[in-house]
């Protein structure tokens, strides 16, 4: 009897010691929940950020959006229109099967064809023909030279042919088809409640630091901060600027912030003479005169906006991307604040008496967007322009800004808007915001001011066809200088994003604004 009891006691002790293995779990308060686990369903920031945990891409982008090897170990151009990618060997899917070129071919076929996709990855896969050379080599051919091939390829998450064949978005959401090669595996998703992933012990790269991660979507900013302060979560993203001062003095919280690829700027009507929201000018459009645009830019005190409106959490901008990005010109600096000079310029242009202008902007899209618009309105009023400000929810704003006018043309005359360069280099804003609007060829899709400069157009188009990096960078720098000196847009500041962790942890910020658990480090 006693022997049995001792034996049982020993077994209990042994079991408890073994199961007492230290399981590190991280609880995260996420501001924006992904709308789907399917990595190709919607090209949306939270979806893309989450997909990085479960899936890999051939080319991966680091914290500064620089390209590096992922599931492809190297790539080169064979000729102007053919790229060859050598794939990584020994990579296993979450179910143990091996990764091969077949999976890549399947991925590029499936990615543009997801049912009901509101914003598909087709933009990044179109015009590309993939051929399998052997199990670990593929070639991608395009019709015209495409220097941004690695950037495009870096956006497409690779899925398994075995599990992805015939699988729909719903199968990814339930976890059935959510098999990737990434550092974490899918466990469970209760939309709105929790999203759970666990460590992939067989990951080919740097192993995950946590055994289990629980994402809790907490949309309300104050509630998210409260959850961190209460100790309910260990890590939150999108810390509201209003709470940063308070959190700095909190001993149990560590703040991590980094500049993003997003520039907040003003887009002006370059096209119409009788612009609908400009009054008191007898049908003329003063914004078409470069001196007026320069006067407006001079009258904006960017440092004051950064300090007072953004509470120090922004960087004044002089061009389209912050320092360190590809295509940034060293010759452009933020326009210094000079109210007297601005008034003089305005008078020289013949508008010393001022005119009426309505500024439009969103109120729930960018950090402190409506407050920025109000500040701009005040600064323009000091210049002598009778400025009114109208902000609206993004659900109303973007449609009107892009297509609210007659014949589906842009409606507004002077707008506050932002642009995040997804490719991490200058061709993105140049192509979409400043190139002449050309629907057939896909240029100027977000050029809401209809700015048109033939010299700029040629430079941008040439740059997009130049495969040599050094040459292309020079062209992009020159194009940026032309556009900024002509004030095609008026840049205001670059957004800075803030993450907060409990004491003992920190976050390495990413310029693409993604919240990625692999960047959570011990301190």
């Amino acid at each position, binding site marked *: 009897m006693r022997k049995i009891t001792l034996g049982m006691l020993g077994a209990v002790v042994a079991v408890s010691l073994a199961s007492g293995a230290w399981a590190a779990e991280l609880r995260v*308060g996420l501001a924006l929940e992904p*709308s*789907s686990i*399917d990595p190709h*369903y*919607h*090209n*949306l920031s939270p979806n893309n950020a989450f997909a990085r945990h479960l899936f890999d891409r051939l080319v991966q982008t680091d914290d500064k959006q620089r390209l590096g090897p992922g599931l492809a170990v190297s790539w080169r151009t064979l000729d102007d229109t053919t790229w060859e990618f050598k794939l990584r060997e020994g990579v296993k899917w979450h179910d143990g099967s091996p990764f091969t070129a077949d999976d890549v071919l399947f991925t590029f076929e499936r990615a543009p064809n997801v*049912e*009901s*996709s*509101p*914003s*598909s990855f*087709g*933009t990044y896969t179109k015009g590309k023909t993939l051929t399998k050379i052997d199990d670990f080599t593929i070639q991608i051919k395009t019709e015209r030279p495409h220097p941004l091939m690695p950037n495009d390829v870096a956006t497409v998450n690779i899925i398994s042919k075995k599990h992805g064949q015939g699988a729909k*978005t*719903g199968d990814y*959401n339930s976890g059935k088809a959510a098999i990737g090669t990434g550092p974490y595996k899918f466990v469970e998703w*209760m*939309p*709105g*409640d*929790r999203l759970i992933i666990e460590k992939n012990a067989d990951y080919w790269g740097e192993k995950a630091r946590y055994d289990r991660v629980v994402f*809790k*979507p*907490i*949309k*309300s900013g*104050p*509630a*998210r901060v*409260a*959850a961190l*302060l*209460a*100790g*309910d979560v260990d890590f939150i993203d999108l810390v509201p600027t209003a709470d940063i001062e308070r959190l700095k003095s909190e001993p149990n919280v560590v703040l991590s912030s980094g500049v993003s690829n997003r520039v907040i700027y003003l887009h002006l009507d370059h096209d119409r003479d009788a612009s609908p929201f400009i009054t008191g000018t007898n049908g003329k459009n003063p914004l078409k005169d470069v001196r007026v645009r320069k006067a407006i830019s001079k009258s904006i005190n960017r440092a004051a906006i950064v300090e007072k409106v953004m509470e120090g959490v922004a960087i004044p901008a002089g061009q389209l991307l912050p320092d360190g990005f590809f295509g940034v010109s060293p010759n452009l600096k933020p326009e210094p604040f000079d109210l007297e000079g601005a008034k003089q310029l305005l008078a020289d242009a013949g508008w010393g008496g001022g005119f009426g202008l309505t500024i439009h902007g969103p109120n*729930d899209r960018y950090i402190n967007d409506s407050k920025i618009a109000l500040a701009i309105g005040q600064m323009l009023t000091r210049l002598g322009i009778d400025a009114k400000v109208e902000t609206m*929810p*993004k*659900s*109303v704003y*973007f*449609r*009107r800004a*892009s*297509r609210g006018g007659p014949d589906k043309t842009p409606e507004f005359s002077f707008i506050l808007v932002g*642009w995040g360069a*997804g490719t991490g280099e200058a061709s*993105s804003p140049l192509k*979409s915001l400043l190139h002449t609007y050309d*629907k057939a060829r*896909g*240029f100027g*899709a*977000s050029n809401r001011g209809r700015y048109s400069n033939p010299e700029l157009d040629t430079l941008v188009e040439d740059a997009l066809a130049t495969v040599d990096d050094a040459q292309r960078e020079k062209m992009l720098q020159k194009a940026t200088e032309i556009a900024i000196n002509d004030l095609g847009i008026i840049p205001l500041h670059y957004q800075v994003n803030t993450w907060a962790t409990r004491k003992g942890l920190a976050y390495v910020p990413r310029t693409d604004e993604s919240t990625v658990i692999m960047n959570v480090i011990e301190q």
Partner: protein
Amino acid sequence: MVIVVMSLLVFFGVNVIGNPIDILINPEFDQEEMERAIKALGLDLPIWQQYLVFVKNAFNGDLGKSFVYGMPALQLIVQRMPATLELALTALLMAVVFGIPLGMWAGLRPDSVAGRTIMSGSILGFSLPTFWVGIMMIMIFAVMLGWLPATGRGETVALFGVQVSFLTKDGLAHMLMPAFNLGLLKLSLVIRLARAGTREAMLQDYVKFARAKGLSTWRVVMVHILKNILIPVVTVLGLEFGNLIAFSVVTETVFAWPGMGKLIIDSIQLLDRPIIVAYLLIIVFMFIAINLVVDVLYSVLDPRVRLQDVKA
């Protein structure tokens, strides 16, 4: 009939606000991609055609697929219904269980300190904005005192196939603050109704008669007065219960409670029309059903209503 009118209003109303494409689509796309996406979601058809497609599908039980999630709208809403219903029912329970006794006390002893405090408290209860009260509770009970969890829903277990959280201790802890936050308005309402009802009932003849008969105060209060004040309380609560479910938006957003309310506010901001339409149709249906239940409860509580039916 109501449902048809509702669906028409919502469908065309949402369309007037804006086009969901502008929010969903990545602005880095060129025009060709935008057109492709518009076609994929069926938004290129003229609006009346879109409505007809919707009606046709509705008869097959398909209320459309969400633009944002790509999943059937009905499935998304039903998935989150248990969370909201759980919260709403708990809020209602709190309102009734605390409201009626407190209101009756205030009615029986209106000039006492307790009575006056209860009445002032009820004024605060329906004046203070729900959002503010929620955040304050989180700051005090979760951050400063650390007694309760700050956000979210707790552990759930399956009851008849539905996930519920009130059966676990963790679930109850998570539910306490949001339920109180949601029910605060109703609590104040019930207190005032109960007080008014009690005061009125006290003056009635049957109460005086019962006292004259020598019945104990306790029996007079619990049996006679209570039953008579229940009718106005039930009426109002019936109407308000629909409100609790439909407009739990604020509480769910503050407490990150994964219910239908949060889904609808997100869908409105993103112009996810299928979800908005499906949700409002379900709510209208629920309101109608609740009114029916209230009518039935009437006849149970008030014999005069029953007798009238019998006579007719």
